[in-house]
């Protein structure tokens, strides 16, 4: 049941919202939490009921281990917990990849593992690993089972993130006196859902055939210069709108229940450096990698060599988290390399220099191009495809340039306009703080800057301008969903 499927949009979501509202209003918000947990588990089980026991087992074991850690501060319990979680992830996600590589190296056939990857295992495993580590480090407050269950299974973020942290979700679940519904919040929630749906079914799915066609061509030979760039750029935009669309929908759906999710996506292609890119793209994964991999490895505490080694290791693991394949590892490695170069550059750059407009745009374009090159490895089925596409992008194809279609150029130009020049959903609705922003921004107000509460007439004017556009894109999104019926396309991040 995808967020962009008719059964989700017309049955599950309205039914869950109404059920939650009814239970919360007539019984209690705590009962509403119970209802939401049950609905979330149903949502997970709807994909494949046979996988439901896995997530339930994972919740039970981790909750039990957490409880044991609260009462007995034992490293052994933490190690058991880590082994359990990483063991599950290792078995389901990486065993096949490992065996396949060992077979290749040794030239023998070991086993034909045909393991089905359980949906969202990477997401709920990371969330619970973070929880256990924080319990061990005395940085967590003991939750009750119901809240813990919802923390892991909360359906808006279950399938493709954000990777939520217990410290930001538990207080919200615990607060049974919170005002979970307001007209303004409801409007913003619907707006987020409409924007997200539009990004997914119109923009991401609309440009997908352009990318697919070129990557398919690359399996047979080196595509021409323009074709290669067209494919790489199309995928760059596809994954952007796919992930951004999912994230917006997740934020909107969570807001319907009065829950704010952490910010996960903040116009990453506007970044003027790779460091900034990783503060804007999949922000909760970056946070996890920083807090639970990079810093435990030593972070930047033992000199630059160690720092860069740690950085590379963290990014390689980040790549591997996305998928059990060498192309993902190379993608992670490339970003590790980019980060090292970026940090080294900052080391030599004069501290006082404040980049001008031209310098900022040059940096933005260079960062964007670096990201595009890395996406080629991320999308390609194997190295051969990726190298052939990059060869085409370098203009080394036998056929040379390929034919430029005005329609393709126009589509890509519109995509550039959107990702570089339009405000993102959070910026549009910053007055209601739709997401939990990362802490520690220099001004203490998060990455979006201080909350702006415009005077009422101005606020209304903004909504007068926004409402017709939001209604239109929401309707177009819904019409595409109804028309597509069963042919809903998966979200890219679902397979991670």
């Amino acid at each position, binding site marked *: 049941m995808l967020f962009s499927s008719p059964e989700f949009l017309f049955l599950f979501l309205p039914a869950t919202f109404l059920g939650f509202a009814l239970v919360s209003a007539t019984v209690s918000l705590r009962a509403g939490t119970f209802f939401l947990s049950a609905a979330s588990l149903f949502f997970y089980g709807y994909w494949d009921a046979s996988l439901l026991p896995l997530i339930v087992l994972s919740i039970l074991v981790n909750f039990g281990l957490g409880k044991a850690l609260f009462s007995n501060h034992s490293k052994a319990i933490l190690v058991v917990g880590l082994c359990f979680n990483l063991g599950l992830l290792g078995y389901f996600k990486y065993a096949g990849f490992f065996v396949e590589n060992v077979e290749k190296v040794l030239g023998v056939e070991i086993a034909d593992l045909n393991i089905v990857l359980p949906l969202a295992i990477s997401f709920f495993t990371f969330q619970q690993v973070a929880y256990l580590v924080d319990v061990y480090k005395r940085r967590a407050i003991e939750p009750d089972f119901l809240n813990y269950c919802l923390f892991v299974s909360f359906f808006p973020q279950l399938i493709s993130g954000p990777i939520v942290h217990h410290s930001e979700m538990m207080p919200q679940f615990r607060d049974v006196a919170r005002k979970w519904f307001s007209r303004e919040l409801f409007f913003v929630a619907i707006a987020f859902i409409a924007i997200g749906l539009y990004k997914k079914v119109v923009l991401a799915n609309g440009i997908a055939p352009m990318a697919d066609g070129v990557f398919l061509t690359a399996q047979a030979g080196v595509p021409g210069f323009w074709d290669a760039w067209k494919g790489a750029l199309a995928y760059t935009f596809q994954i952007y709108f796919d992930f951004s669309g999912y994230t917006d929908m997740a934020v909107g759906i969570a807001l319907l229940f009065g829950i704010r999710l952490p910010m996960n996506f903040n116009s990453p292609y506007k970044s003027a450096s790779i460091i900034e890119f990783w503060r804007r793209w999949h922000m909760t994964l970056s946070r996890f990698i920083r807090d639970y991999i990079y810093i435990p490895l030593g972070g930047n505490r033992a000199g630059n060599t160690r720092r860069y080694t740690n950085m590379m290791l963290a990014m390689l693991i980040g790549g591997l988290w996305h998928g059990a394949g060498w192309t993902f590892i190379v993608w992670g490695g490339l970003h590790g390399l980019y980060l090292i170069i970026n940090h080294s550059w900052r080391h030599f750059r004069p501290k006082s220099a404040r980049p001008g407009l031209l310098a900022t745009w040059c940096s933005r374009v260079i960062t964007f191009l670096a990201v595009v090159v890395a996406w080629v490895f991320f999308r390609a089925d194997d190295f051969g495809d990726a190298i052939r596409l990059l060869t085409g992008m370098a203009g080394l194809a036998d056929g040379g340039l390929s034919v430029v279609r005005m329609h393709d150029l126009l*589509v890509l130009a519109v995509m550039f306009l959107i990702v570089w020049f339009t405000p993102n959903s959070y910026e549009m609705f910053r007055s209601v703080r739709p997401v939990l922003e990362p802490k520690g921004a220099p001004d203490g107000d998060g990455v979006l800057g201080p909350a702006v509460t415009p005077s009422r007439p101005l606020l209304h004017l903004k909504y007068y301008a926004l*409402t*017709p*556009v939001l209604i*239109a*894109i929401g309707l*177009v999104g*819904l019409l*595409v969903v109804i*028309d597509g019926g069963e042919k809903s396309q998966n979200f890219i991040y679902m397979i991670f």
Partner: protein
Amino acid sequence: MMAVRLVLIRFMLIVAASTLAIFMSEYSVRLAVPKYDPAGHIAFFVDPATGVLLGKPNSKTRQIKNSGDYDVEVIFNRHGLRDKRDIANGRVEDLYVVGDSFAFGWGVKETERFSSVLEKLTGREVYNIATTANLDGYERLLTYSAEQGAEIRDVVMAINMIDDVRDYDAILKTKKIARQIPQSTPEPSVAISLQAMKQFLLTNSALYFLATSAIGSIDVVRRVLVRLGFVKTLNDVNGGRPRDAEIRTTANRILALSQKYNLTVLLIPSRGLWVGGHEAAAAAAAAHATFSDELHRLGITVIDMRPVMEATGNPMAFHFQHDGHWRPRGHSLAAEVIADKLTPRQRLPE
């Protein structure tokens, strides 16, 4: 004063935002569902040199119905005809199919048309030169094909009872008179008919196409729209009950053609025989019988699809659910009947 200004600003904002929203929606649909982009939809034009109705030469388009009945690719060859064969290679022993949208294969794949199926059944090369013309156009299409190099002798002409049987002499006379009288500028019509508006949107707006397609796919909504008269059903049949004068002129036209070619008429019955009111059906049946008899009387070979379709017990099953054209099974049936009826001379290559 301030309040008036604010209202004005709000109004202008809504108008501007709504305009932007409609524009965005239209182009969004063209991106997300390119098959609904009207630019890629099938269109015909009258070749100014020959007066023949043709498709755009060497083009690939889609034929798609917003009711979900069909969505097929249509490829026109260099002559503007929907045929993978090149008419320039047509020889005297080959068979030529001409007709309107039925023979053209409206809504079905090129390989599913009765001409293609007939080719498989008989082993004889069959050229399809149908577009969406009427009887006047068929003659032009045959002449056009001959000019391209085809040697035409055996022709199967599909005559559609709904709109092929007309008083062509009167039409010609009207055209001549119209040419002699200087045209005055017509008064602009204030009332735009719903049908005309729907047709305009259908051929110009991807958003409208998507909206009607999506809404139509919800059965309950569709039924309501039918009841309100916004959507027509197969029960609404215009034509198919020609007057005697129309029958006579059409038959004479066909007779004239049969003197130039070895002609077989495939008579496509109006669905008005089986749907709609009882009176209308009786009128359609009478017209069908009169026309068929007239053709026989003139000595023209006729393959009448009516008895064959009725013999199956459910003649409407050969039509699409929401479109009056034949489904692939209608084409298959027609091909089988034609193959059976062709004389040995027509069946075997000489």
